[in-house]
């Protein structure tokens, strides 16, 4: 329960309409896109300005009440579930595009703006903002920054961190800081901008961002390569990179994923194939032609069963949209889908696919795999039922082993979804004991009272490693 005096103060800051503690609001902010996690907050607040956020943080610091800042709550690591109660701060009202600077090619935007709407606007001005997480139709720029979201264009264009060049953020004590700026070079002190990107709401509350924009590619071409052999598809991915071609998009879907995605999107995807690769290249026309021809050659050498080039842009966009639905579409098989995003160096993608399938067999769980194969970022997704505790336990064991396998192959426990609650017990596996200590030191410097999204990133205890280290 929130202290009455604090409730009054919060209401004074934002107005009665924008602070809520009725049961409906609490229940509706007790979850995010992560399965099986739910915890009620004590209040929900909707600020409109950075000044309000600052006042709110001063009040919450004084009363030692924790806060979880969030956009649409579509993250997949339990990052915005208020496990310690407190206040959920929804940034939706701060959704304005402050400025597009056509001389510097930057955009300044408030955190609550929906990513797809931002991208649409930027493209209408003849510019390009590449990060395109699958949730972009609903996720916000602020949420993308907090999680350092990736997307389908990550391998060629990088992820959110590569486009954030300046931030305004409110610290736990209510102080407002500004980092970076409309600057392509800036080494004045530690790079706080990059530090805040991907900090999952644990260091500060982002209230404004300056983003780098780039000129759009002249043309795009999209291709679908279909395989009867799963590993042929996976090998193709590594071989394309080896051939020094970096496609704009290089996505992988296995058979179960193809089926559910087609059930949803009705695109006539080949339901009898073991895997498909969705490949897109963009750039100037000659390069695109040359790269696509070479990619087609590689696909054929790896015995692709069929190769189709999308005839129209509209069809290509439909294919990309369908791929973005994969995670949720898998819920058609079983009600609960648990997905992870273990990532390996891209030369090891075929090994990783192999290991995932072995592990799924070992624990007798069904795991569908899709993902951004081109950047080594796979999304093995277990289809299960939250009501079956025994099976869910086996799924947990399988994922532990998948994390272990990823690290063994030189990879990481999470490529783009973040640590949040779900991967906190495994963080030490990746960054080591000393790494955890440094990160905790940083957390303490920003948020000494541990009010910002407590319980995330750092687990009370690290999971014991399930497999003896082999390498």
């Amino acid at each position: 329960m929130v202290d009455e005096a604090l409730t009054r103060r919060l209401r004074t800051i934002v107005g009665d309409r924008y602070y809520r503690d009725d049961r409906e609001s609490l229940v509706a902010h007790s979850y995010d896109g992560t399965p099986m996690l739910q915890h009620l907050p004590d209040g929900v607040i909707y600020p409109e300005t950075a000044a309000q956020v600052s006042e709110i943080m001063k009040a919450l610091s004084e009363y030692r009440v924790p806060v979880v800042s969030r956009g649409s709550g579509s993250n997949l690591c339990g990052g915005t579930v208020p496990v310690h109660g407190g206040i959920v701060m929804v940034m939706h009202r701060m959704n304005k595009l402050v400025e597009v600077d056509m001389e510097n090619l930057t955009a300044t935007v408030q955190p609550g703006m929906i990513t797809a709407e931002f991208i649409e606007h930027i493209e209408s001005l003849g510019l390009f903002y590449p990060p395109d997480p699958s949730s972009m139709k609903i996720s916000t720029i602020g949420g993308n920054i907090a999680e350092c979201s990736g997307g389908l264009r990550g391998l060629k264009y990088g992820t959110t961190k590569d486009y954030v060049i300046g931030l305004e953020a409110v610290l736990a004590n209510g102080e407002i800081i500004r980092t970076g700026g409309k600057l392509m070079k800036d080494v004045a002190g530690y790079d706080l901008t990059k530090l805040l990107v991907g900090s999952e709401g644990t260091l500060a509350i982002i209230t404004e961002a300056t983003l780098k924009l780039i000129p759009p590619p002249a043309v795009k071409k999209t291709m679908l390569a279909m395989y009867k052999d799963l590993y042929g598809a996976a090998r193709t991915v590594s071989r394309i990179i080896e051939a020094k071609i970096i496609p704009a998009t290089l996505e992988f879907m296995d058979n179960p994923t193809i089926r559910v995605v087609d059930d949803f999107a009705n695109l006539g995807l080949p339901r009898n194939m073991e895997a498909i690769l969705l490949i897109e290249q963009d750039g100037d026309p000659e390069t695109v032609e040359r790269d696509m021809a070479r990619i087609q050659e590689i696909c054929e050498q790896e015995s692709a069963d069929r190769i189709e080039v999308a005839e129209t842009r509209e069809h290509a966009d439909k294919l990309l949209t369908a791929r973005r639905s994969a995670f949720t579409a898998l819920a058609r098989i079983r009600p609960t889908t648990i997905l992870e995003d273990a990532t390996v160096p891209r030369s090891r993608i075929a090994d990783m696919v192999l290991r995932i399938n072995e592990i799924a067999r070992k624990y007798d769980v069904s795991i569908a795999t899709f993902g951004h194969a081109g950047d080594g970022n796979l999304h093995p997704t277990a289809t299960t039922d939250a009501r079956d505790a025994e099976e869910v336990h086996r799924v947990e064991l399988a994922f532990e082993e998948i994390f272990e396998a990823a690290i063994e192959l030189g990879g990481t426990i999470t490529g783009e979804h973040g640590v949040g609650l779900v991967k906190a017990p495994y963080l030490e596996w990746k960054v080591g004991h000393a790494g955890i200590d440094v990160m905790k030191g940083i957390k303490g410097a920003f948020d000494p009272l541990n009010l910002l999204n407590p319980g995330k990133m750092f687990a009370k205890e690290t999971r014991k490693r399930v497999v003896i280290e082999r390498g």
Partner: protein
Amino acid sequence: MAKAISSSIDKFEQPACGKPNINHANPLSRTMLAKLDYDQLTNCMRCGFCLPACPTFRETGLEPESPRGRIALMKAVVDGVMEPDQAFADQMNHCLGCRACEPACPADVKYGQLIEQTRDALEEHAEHGLAVKGLRNVLFKGVFPKRGRLKWIGRSLAFYQKSGLRAITRGTGIMKLFPGQIREMERILPQASGQGVVERIGTTYPAKGEKIARVALFRGCIMDVLFADTNVNTVKLLSEAGFEVVIPDAQVCCGALHAHSGEMDQARELARVNLQAFKDAGVEYIVSNAGGCGALLVEYDHLLQDDQQYSELARWFAASVVDVSKLLVERGRLPAFDEDNAPDAAPVTITYQDSCHLRNVMKSADAPRQLMRRVSNARFVEMKEADRCCGSAGIYNVTQPEMAGQILEHKMEHAARTEASYLLTSNPGCLLQMKLGVEKHGAGSRMEVLHVVDFLYERIARGNDEADGSKGSG
């Protein structure tokens, strides 16, 4: 992977399968536990893909106003996390029921069924004031199911509109005593009639040329009183395209308004009457020209799935229901449509407002557009967010005037931007709402609102003796 925090979610723990085994103290919670499909509640995995599709979320930006939020609230009640209070009921009634969230949902969650089951439960425990109770009784039991009374209302309304009583009423300012939304509705109500489609053209109408199929018309209750011309034009257009049309006279209201208002038993009763009325008609298709009715008709199989006597007939019925546009496009021998045959005979711009239930439930979004694009000398312009609910939503514009008004205002901004002279749609509710919008937001001088069928029928190429200039209802 929730294990690390399982202690903090103890109160949400679930049974191994099926429904939670809870003995709720709250009677409404008990009813909801019994009525709601728990698998559907579980199937929502909260990805949030439905949020941008939801009109009430778009208007408010508030999570409880979204499909994901509403499902979370329903589940919280069933799981015993929350007592269903008035705010809960209000939230459930705030949903338009447009079902735009369903095609947006990759997981295929049947939101429409969940919201209907919830409203059904709410209705069982509702404490309506005497006046509301009386009105609901009169409307749901006394009017919609009864053809005779509907006709009587149609005749009375026609008398009111024609006799000068309307002028007198308006002159005295008595309408000012009614709430705003009823007053506005009264102004735009089309000419009613006690003469329905059967009274005008009989119960069978032959196909023009070689017969492609024999089909039955579902005439609807409101359609047949306020838009009987549209029903007549639907029959004639089907005939032009090669269909023999029968209109079983024993058919009644589809039950959609009942189902959406939580009167499920009433809806089932009406469905059974309709199954009887159509089963011996010997038809290949049952044609609907109202998205709202059609959407319930195609779900009769679901509505009567537990009815042993009727479930099989209901499956046949549901599989036979088709929207008029879709049937024309997919099976019909289409006549040529030409804007030059229309009364105003100048090149025009037309635009279209989807009927949500036609689009999201009957999955017929493309067919009406294909038909409109076939009209020579008419330019079809897609309206921004044509696929978004107009706020009519059954009786929503009467029960939730504030939200409906807000949605309508945005809709009319988009409509005005198309610079169309005709705004076409496929459902009586949408038709009335669009007329209201045009009247209220000033596009009125330029824009005419019509049912797609009426627009098309007026534009059948001349030299065709059936196209005798019968005008639509607009």
